[in-house]
């Protein structure tokens, strides 16, 4: 065995029901990984299971339901320490000497605190509210506010105007996903959906493609460490600006979009030469401390005439509460905290699986810290990273968030099957790829409709849950931790989450 010998076993086994298969070769056309190949003589389809990433495109599109994907059936060693995955990782690194890359949120079995928080409902002493009969308000505004509003009561007008605010008809936005990490069609779908829903999408750090400018009223422009695509036009076109300090899936490191993905469109949008690697440094090299962040925030505010809210996004890390409090004092209008189960287009596997903390704990700690300091009402707080359903949104708001952002969930609505192979650029669903043949599979209007359906369904569920609690405005849910009870949590976890145990 030499250094190049591949000891890594396939992860999946693709099984074809030969009795059901009609040989239509839909699977062959579906798979950019070359799992299914048509062999002429004799006329049959052969399978290369090693190439399968479990994106399930062929399974979904097989008209005869003849395909299933199973785990590779090799038995493990029986060791809990040296699992098949642990050994496969070592084998890959022994073969390549490289950092292991992976994508999407960590699949590791860390606690998901959402699943340990139960919601309240009214019984007897106060009535639940029927959302079909009564208004059930999900609108929220994001931006900074004064502690005290100066008004003229007789004339019913505001004496000192508020800082710029974003109006969200639903407390759900779309997380930052750049052109480059996802396809332009996927971005267009999010832009269309955000516009339709009255919420916001985020162009990520890859600049804003000119095709997205018609939707810029519903766009966050991101300023990240690589500053790709950033100029005065970019900042002034968007509705709001987000400074990305960190991302939940890969706190503390930058990003690397390989040159082969920098085609002419990506090149133009990112304002970098075609074919060159797009490297986002780990830190912003003009932010080495909190006072530097203030300078960047105010540079952006100056550039946009103080007409746009500026958000700052951090990864949920150990000291998130203190960091967020500092951010609130630097002039950030919106604080975004991204939990470590959040997704990514590409991250070193060890970083994704080992760095950062769950968003639930970070969110609860940040909200409480801002309240302890009496500044929570003056800044908005957005939570993201592993929001899976409407109940997670309700839990996040009850813990203290003004709104949530969803990334993975929106992509799943478009077809993503969480195969975690985004970094290969061969996304069969046309989402995380720039190959024209693949991106053409994702039609923006159709994908947008699915995303809109998802958020509308969640909104209806949120309204039902709020109504059950006797609450008819999301304002009264925000930070309302009495509406939560913990199960299966220890004292310390309850303490950090600021919730009582079920039965208390």
């Amino acid at each position, binding site marked *: 065995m030499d250094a190049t010998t591949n000891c890594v076993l396939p992860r999946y086994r693709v099984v074809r029901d030969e009795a059901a298969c009609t040989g239509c070769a839909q699977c062959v056309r579906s798979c950019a990984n070359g799992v299914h190949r048509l062999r002429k003589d004799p006329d049959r389809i052969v399978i290369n299971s090693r190439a399968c990433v479990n994106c399930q495109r062929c399974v979904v599109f097989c008209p005869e339901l003849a395909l299933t994907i199973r785990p590779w059936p090799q038995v493990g060693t029986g060791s809990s320490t040296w699992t098949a995955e642990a050994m496969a990782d070592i084998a890959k690194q022994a073969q390549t000497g490289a950092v292991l890359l992976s994508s999407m949120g960590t699949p590791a079995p860390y606690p998901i605190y959402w699943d340990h928080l139960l919601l309240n409902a009214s019984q007897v002493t106060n009535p639940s509210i029927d959302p079909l009969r009564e208004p059930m308000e999900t609108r929220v505004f994001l931006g900074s506010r004064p502690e005290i509003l100066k008004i003229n009561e007789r004339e*019913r007008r505001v004496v000192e105007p508020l800082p710029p605010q974003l109006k969200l008809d639903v407390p759900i936005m779309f997380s930052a996903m750049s052109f480059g990490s996802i396809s332009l069609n996927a971005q267009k779908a999010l832009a269309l959906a955000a516009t339709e829903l009255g919420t916001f999408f985020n162009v990520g750090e890859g600049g804003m493609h000119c095709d997205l400018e018609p939707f810029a009223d519903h766009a966050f422009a991101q300023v990240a460490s690589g500053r790709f695509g950033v100029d005065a036009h970019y900042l002034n076109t968007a509705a709001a600006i987000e400074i990305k300090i960190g991302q939940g899936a890969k706190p503390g490191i930058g990003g690397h979009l390989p040159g082969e993905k920098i085609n002419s469109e990506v090149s133009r949008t990112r304002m970098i030469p075609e074919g060159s690697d797009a490297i986002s440094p780990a830190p912003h090299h003009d932010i080495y401390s909190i006072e530097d962040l203030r300078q960047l925030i105010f540079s952006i505010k100056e550039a946009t005439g103080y007409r746009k809210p500026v958000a700052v996004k951090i990864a949920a890390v150990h000291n998130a509460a203190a960091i967020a409090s500092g951010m609130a004092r630097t002039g950030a209008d919106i604080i975004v905290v991204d939990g470590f189960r959040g997704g990514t287009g590409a991250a070193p596997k060890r970083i994704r699986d080992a760095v950062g903390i769950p968003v639930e704990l970070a969110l609860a700690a940040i909200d409480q810290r801002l309240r302890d300091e009496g*500044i929570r009402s003056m800044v908005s707080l957005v939570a993201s990273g592993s929001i899976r359903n409407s109940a997670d949104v309700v839990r996040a708001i009850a813990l203290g968030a003004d709104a949530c952002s969803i990334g993975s969930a929106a992509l799943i609505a478009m077809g993503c099957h969480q195969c975690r192979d985004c970094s290969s650029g061969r996304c069969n669903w046309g989402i995380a790829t720039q190959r024209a043949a693949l991106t053409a599979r994702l039609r923006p209007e159709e994908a947008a409709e699915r995303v809109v359906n998802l958020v509308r369904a969640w909104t209806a569920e949120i309204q039902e849950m709020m109504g059950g609690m006797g609450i*008819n405005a999301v304002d009264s849910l925000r*930070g*309302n931790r*009495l509406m939560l009870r913990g199960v299966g949590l220890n004292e310390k976890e309850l303490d950090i989450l600021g919730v009582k145990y079920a039965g208390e």
Partner: protein
Amino acid sequence: MTRRNIPREGEVRIPSGCAIAGIMDRSGARHDGGDILRSIALMHDRSNGLGGGFAAYGIYPDYADLYAFHIMYESREARAAAEAYLEHFYLCEKQERIPTEEHPAIKNPPDIWRYFMAPHPMRLAASGLDEAEYTMQHVFHINGKIEGAFVASSGKDMGVFKGVGYPEDIGAFYRIGDYRAWAWTAHGRFPTNTPGWWGGAHPFTLLNWSVVHNGEISSYDANRRYVEQFGYDCELQTDTEVITYLFDLLARRHGLSQQMAAHIMAAPSWREIDAMEPDRAAFETALRTVYASALVNGPFSIIVGSEEGLLALNDRLKLRALMVAEKGPMVYLASEQAAIQVVCPDAENVRSIEGGVPFVVQRDDVAAAKAGEAAENRAVRDWPLEHEVGVLPRKRREA
């Protein structure tokens, strides 16, 4: 009074249903407690004997400039500790036991005292606070830190008489017929638990505020965590307490009118705002945005008393009953219409309070003075402090 094993307000959150009533003479003429007693007594079935009380405004004209503290003590030690504390921070003009009358239905009352006091001028000046804030801090200290002492009321020319029992029995116990007030409110309580603690009865008060409330607000923790940012410790974990603090924050500290404070707490829906003309919509949007966490949700009906008069407010969906009627300078409020008609059979304009629309009754002299005031709110913290050294409380200088 011995402490029972069942948790009290402050140790556990206890929802309760209730009866509330209020009677006010706009002219400022004072009336004894007979009518309010009969009004609340009629709604006997809306309470269950576990709490009743009254707030009265204008009862201490001889001491109108001094803070009148009503304090309930469960032990001699508690009284000694509280009096030593007050002696340090206040100059006391007069102190006495509040006269009470034995009543067969009133069991185990605490020792109840009242004090007429001015803030100690040197300590007030050294505190850097205005006298209302100074007094509020000391009320919080006594209630939170001195075991067995509870300040039932702490305003000027007003007082609260409350305890465990049906309100009509509590009224008889305190001899409220002997007091003359231009405004009265009353509360009969139906808690879902049996804490049996006198401090937990209502009205709840702070400074000149008194609040009686019927309902259970679903926004409680959102409201609590909002006001706690600004130093309001929600020790009792009751709706009434947090509503009182919201009024104090918005009306006293932020300088908004009581009506505007109530409007913020029961804000118009977005649907209504969207239908407004743009300037008005922008104004309402700004209020809802800045004061989003002051929105009170879930069923409630409240009567708020203050030196200005009474304010009644229902939740915006109108999930609790509250009636109002008038007769000459008199205004009557009650959970049930019959409770108004029993004391004023020929009351006029009998109607229910509309959901989310504050009903404000000001004393005539207050209304006249308000008409001449600036329409822009000015936060308390922006007023310059005038540090006078004298026995009587200093006044704020017009700036």
